[in-house]
């Protein structure tokens, strides 16, 4: 008996070995600095457990994937600072982004941390303000918006050309001889130069909270699904390049996502003083409405005045007893303090136009459908009768 497939099996085995070897080599070059030897356990994909609340927690770390992420050069203990001495870990603490991570920031030569960003967020609309804001658990933390994204491959900045990227990198490595360092630096630079999220993803991110009616009510805010009525969203939806998402207007060029303020604050791009510039979007990737006038900027992009209705009914509310009444009151107070009379009037007109069309469409279409239904019934009847009488005539003749 002959084994004709033996040769093929041998070739296949050799190829497989080569492939695996290559993989290992690749892995070793990408591997993260694991001096604490965390991967001794955490490299196993089944690593995990159910916590007290019955939630499945996965503790597996894919070191090759992690090494390609923006935090890939950090050791585990840079962020997971305490509670790791016991095994299995019992008293582990949540990662705090203000932790100094023992990397020197080159411009100041100081140890780097995200503390300054956290401070800015604290002072902005999204900050907890030392617990003075109601329902602090609703407010976002770093991880609500940021995950640990991967660096993209060597393309993108120069017209999606890998060759050009390699050429640029080659110039770097003339002086900075450690290629790994140069690669990392270049990847970091490119990562900052590109938008990491598509417009749709940004809208999804913001609407994750801001479309949640209950959550918004708790803070006296209006839910923003009305954004999806605008042409802005439709451009995003139909994938127009540079279509305006949330941050295009709320964080235009020169502003920071971490420093957002209410529109009554002069530091907000939506403050009446800054609006014209925001709409015109001068200095951005593109100019959106270069001819924007102050009146143009006064128009509401996505607000249909749920607040205004609240403000109108503010006098009629008595002492709030139930929880939802309390919430209503909060919305009303905010609406009363923040909306000018002119704005309330504007919202009322909008409301009445919408109502007018609801009634008009409802009544006209209702009338038509009724008429057509009756007409169909009547003509069918008439045709049947005519048919019947014609048959009778025939019978008579016979």
């Amino acid at each position, binding site marked *: 008996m002959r084994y004709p497939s033996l040769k093929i099996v041998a070739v296949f085995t050799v190829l497989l070995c080569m492939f695996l070897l290559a993989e290992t080599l690749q892995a070793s070059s990408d591997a993260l600095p694991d001096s604490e030897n965390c991967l001794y356990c955490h490299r196993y994909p089944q690593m995990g457990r159910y916590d007290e609340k019955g939630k499945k927690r996965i503790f597996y770390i894919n070191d090759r994937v992690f090494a390609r992420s923006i935090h890939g050069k950090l050791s585990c203990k840079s962020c997971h600072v305490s509670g790791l001495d016991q095994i299995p870990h019992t008293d582990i603490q949540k990662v705090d982004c203000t932790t100094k991570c023992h990397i020197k920031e080159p411009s100041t030569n100081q140890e780097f941390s995200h503390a300054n960003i956290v401070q800015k967020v604290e002072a902005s609309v999204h900050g907890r303000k030392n617990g003075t804001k109601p329902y602090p658990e609703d407010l976002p933390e770093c991880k609500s918006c940021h995950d640990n994204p991967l660096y993209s491959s060597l393309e993108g900045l120069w017209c999606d050309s890998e060759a050009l990227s390699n050429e640029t990198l080659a110039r770097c490595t003339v002086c900075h001889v450690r290629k790994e360092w140069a690669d990392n630096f270049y990847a970091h630079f490119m990562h900052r130069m590109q938008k990491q999220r598509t417009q749709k993803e940004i809208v999804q991110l913001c609407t994750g909270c801001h479309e949640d009616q209950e959550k918004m009510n708790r803070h006296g805010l209006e839910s923003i699904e009305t954004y999806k009525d605008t042409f802005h969203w*439709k451009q995003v939806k139909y994938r127009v390049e540079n279509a305006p998402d949330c941050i295009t207007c709320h964080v235009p060029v020169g502003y920071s996502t971490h420093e957002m303020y209410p529109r009554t604050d002069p530091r907000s791009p939506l403050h009446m003083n800054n609006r014209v510039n925001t709409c015109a979007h001068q200095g951005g990737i593109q100019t959106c409405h270069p001819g924007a006038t102050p009146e143009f900027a006064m128009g509401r992009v996505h607000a249909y005045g749920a607040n205004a209705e609240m403000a109108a009914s503010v006098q009629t509310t008595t002492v709030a007893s139930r929880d939802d009444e309390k919430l209503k009151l909060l919305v009303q107070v905010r609406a009363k303090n923040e909306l000018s009379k002119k704005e309330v009037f504007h919202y009322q007109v909008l409301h009445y136009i919408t109502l007018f069309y609801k009634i008009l469409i409802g009544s006209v279409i209702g009338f038509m459908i009724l008429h057509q239904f009756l007409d169909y019934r*009547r003509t069918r009847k008439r045709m049947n009768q005519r048919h019947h009488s014609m048959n009778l005539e025939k019978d008579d003749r016979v």
Partner: protein
Amino acid sequence: MNKTTIIMVKNGKKFFFRFSVNQRIQHLILATCVVVLVLTGMPLKFHYTFWAQYLYALFGGIHMAPIIHRMAGIVLILLFVYHIIYLIRTIWRGQIVPLKQKEGLSIVRLIRLLLDQPLMPNFKDLKDIFDLFKYLLFLTSERPQGAQFTWKEKFDYWAPFWGIVIIGASGAIMWGKEIATQWLPGEVINFALIAHSDEALLAALFLFIWHWYNVHFSTSVFPMGTAFLTGYLSEELMIEEHYEYYIEVMKQEGFENEILPPHQGGGNDNIKKKPMEEIHSASELPRIL
């Protein structure tokens, strides 16, 4: 009016003049524009539905469809302007100038003349609506006897008339919003958006439910009324819908002996047929625009 044959006899069948070539072309342009506008506009209003993206892609997606939409809008507005000029010119030449020569012009006479236009809504329409519903609900077997244009056709005419004004104006405001807000308050853009899209929805539903049913799907015209192409209406439909006008025209054109009885509620012999003379007395000459 002198040139057109009011009643055309072909193979022993009579056909009644409805629309001139000019009017038929106007209607075709209007129809094409409206259909294109609806198809390129609705995928935006109903962007959250599954069909929106496919329909939009058919018109070149968001890069092309808005351009098509605006072009069709421009054509429609031009047509509207032309129609207004046409309307004024026709009334001026056909009615006001003869009136001037005959009786002299006064404001009262002019207003009465304008109110007497065949497409002007009047009290007879109200009565006809009431009577038609009586007929539809089997309370009577007599259809109301329509004039040259019934209330349905007046509805068909004035709905797009009003629609083009509202949708055209709001569309223009949204198109040139930076220019518009040099004179208008910024809120007007918000109002325009709601008016444009809701009015358009109304217009589209009107078109499908009302107009298309009446001229295509209704059992009396199915599969398609042909008057918008040929300009002439069959005797049967003329009797059913415009009996008052039918008698007027028949008498005027010298077919008095051939006038047929009105449609009854379906071959019901119990209903006494009135003699012709009682049914209608032709009062004045029909005016055709």
